[in-house]
């Protein structure tokens, strides 16, 4: 399969802050490719450069064979962008929003009317098409936000954290919708800081941190980075900050971090390391109140690569 998006040595700097630091990756046509990373990792800046909103300081981007720098209009025609914010006109109805955005992509007449009808069905707003979108629920607005990007049947859909701030049911609908789009042959570039979403959706995942791609590959390929390490989460009877130093020095602990009030460890063998952790806790006069042993996942990969939890 040919590449839908090729990013080479891309760099973007805002004053002294290097937001994107020479990253490279390829997205193959027909796949779902996720950029995973914490807030501030550079995902949205990367997306903005691919969707022609920001000009890179250096590097090259091509979308469906067209250079973003040399032929931005061709790139814009090939992509549909779902911004992180809900970018709709609240005082217009769902139908009026779709008509307007369709026209901005050059749709007219019967084609436009047909697409509006189709998209309203896809996003489940046919019954509410005449209502002003400001009265919609958060999930309905999110669906309209996505529908707008699909109006012109783009070859590549770029979605920037489309599930931020919505209820679990709407989130499920969106994730299913993304899979359906992909089944229809659309290439999807998806950014998220939820590792579960990246894990569920993606053919390939690039993990970003501090403007760099620190790992890229399929899910199994990324898990291999952690190797045979186990992940152990401990709850303590005291402030976890008090225990992290002593417990982190226990023999067999590869990485340690704080997450959601618990201490996360990457350990070589949980059967061997756990008794040592209990012994150290006892020696330091605090109790372990909960123990959770997990299979390695993307969270563990991120912890392994950065020494921090994904949500830090």
């Amino acid at each position, binding site marked *: 399969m040919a590449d839908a998006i090729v990013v080479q040595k891309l760099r973007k700097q805002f004053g002294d802050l290097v937001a994107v630091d020479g990253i490279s990756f390829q997205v193959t046509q027909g796949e779902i490719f996720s950029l995973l990373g914490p807030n501030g990792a550079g995902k949205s800046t990367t997306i903005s450069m691919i969707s022609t909103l920001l000009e890179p300081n250096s590097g090259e981007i091509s979308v469906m064979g067209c250079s973003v720098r040399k032929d931005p209009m061709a790139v814009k025609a090939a992509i549909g962008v779902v911004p992180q914010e809900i*970018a709709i006109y609240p005082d217009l109805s769902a139908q009026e929003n779709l008509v307007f955005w369709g*026209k*901005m*992509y050059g749709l007219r007449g019967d084609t436009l009317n047909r697409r509006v009808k189709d998209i309203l069905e896809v996003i489940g707003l046919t019954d509410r098409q005449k209502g002003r979108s400001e009265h919609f629920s958060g999930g309905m607005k999110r669906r309209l936000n996505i529908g707008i990007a699909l109006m012109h049947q783009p070859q590549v859909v770029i979605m920037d954290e489309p599930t931020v701030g919505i209820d679990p049911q709407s989130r499920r609908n969106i994730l299913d919708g993304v899979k359906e789009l992909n089944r229809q042959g659309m290439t999807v570039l998806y950014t998220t800081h939820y590792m579960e979403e990246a894990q569920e959706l993606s053919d390939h995942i690039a993990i970003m941190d501090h403007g760099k791609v620190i790992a890229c590959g399929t899910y199994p390929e990324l898990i291999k980075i952690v190797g045979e390490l186990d992940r152990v989460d401990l709850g303590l009877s005291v402030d976890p900050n008090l225990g992290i130093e002593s417990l982190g020095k226990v023999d067999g602990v590869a990485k340690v971090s704080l997450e959601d009030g618990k201490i996360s460890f990457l350990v070589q063998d949980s059967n061997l390391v756990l008794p040592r952790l209990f012994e150290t806790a006892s020696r330091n006069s605090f109790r372990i109140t909960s123990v959770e042993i997990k299979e390695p996942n993307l969270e563990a990969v991120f912890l392994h690569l950065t020494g921090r939890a994904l949500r830090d």
Partner: protein
Amino acid sequence: MKLSTLILKDLRRAFLNPFGLSMMFVAPLLITGLIALAFGGMGGEDAQVSIQATRLVVANLDPGSAQAGFSAGQLLTDFLMDESVSNLVQVTSMDDAEAAKAAVLGGEQGAALIIPADFTTALISDKSSTLHLYHDPTLTIGAGIVRSLIAQFVDGFSGTRIASDVTISQFSGRGLPVDEGLHHQVAQEYTAWVTSMGEQGSGQDPIGLTIRTPADTEPVENPIQGIMARIMAGMMIFFAFWTGANSALSILREDEEATLPRLFTTPTSRQTILGAKMIVCALTVAIEVVVLLVLSSLLFRIEWGSPASIALASVGLVVITAGFGVFLISFLKSSRQAGGVMGGALTMLGMLGGLFTEGIQNIPAAFKTLNLVTPHGWALKAWNASLGPGVGPDLLLAFAVLVGLGALFFALGARKFSRRFA
């Protein structure tokens, strides 16, 4: 095609916004309407705007001239006490000037006219004399009416003197005898002629005051309308500047709503997207001005100037408000700053520009000059000039300044926005 789609979308949003609509149309008409009501009513088809008669006390110190055989002071007093002007002034007389002034200070009288002792002498000779009119400072219209009546009376006397001088000059030139009796004869005949002309010209109408709207050559019965036109023009200018800025503000609002960046991801050039915004600024103000002109004509019976002068003033107003709006808003970082800027800066500029003092008399000349430091002042100048007959040089000058300034502001603002969203 995309340009028209963008323009229609923005116009639609602008005219769906209740707050925007109320500021564009309701506020200027409401304020002008309240002022009209304060003056005594608004004109329906047959309605008249009535002015409460000004209470005037006259202290006539002029004993008259034995040589001339009359007292101009007494004639003026009689003229002001005439039945025909009783709907405008209610006159009482006093002998003491200080008592007359005290009556105004005490609020018993609206105005006091002091006729000096040398009034008759001055009128029949080349000397000057000063009439003193003291009035309640809140009585702007009433004082203006009294002034007009006095001016009309004095003009009549000046006419007599001119007629007399011309006659005597012609008599002397032909070597005919000139004596004191000739002066009297000329004066009497001139007065009789003026009186007969006045009676013929006005039919059943009272003698004295006729007030015309500046645009009209025909006298109108409603003296408020000329003032109303100026007040309405001031309100229209103020709110047109608000609309211009508010329209330009949609650029920042769309940026914050994320629809502007999203527009930039569509295959549409940034120049088209931002250009449409600028066009919408001008179109919105143009629609506002046309609607306000029509509605104010219907509601307040304001007779605006000639079509050509109104067109020039309107185009000037549209260009300056759209240009200034884009310029002003280009300095803002976010729409949250707009409240202070639009409420504070535009109000201050409006005040400096004289928009809220229009219709008040005795404004110092320095303030009138200061008005022209602001674009509002030039807009007001254009509209006031447009109320005069035809397209005069004042209107052409103001129009040129408005278009020039508007284009300059527009270019600076558009450049700033283009750089910001480059």
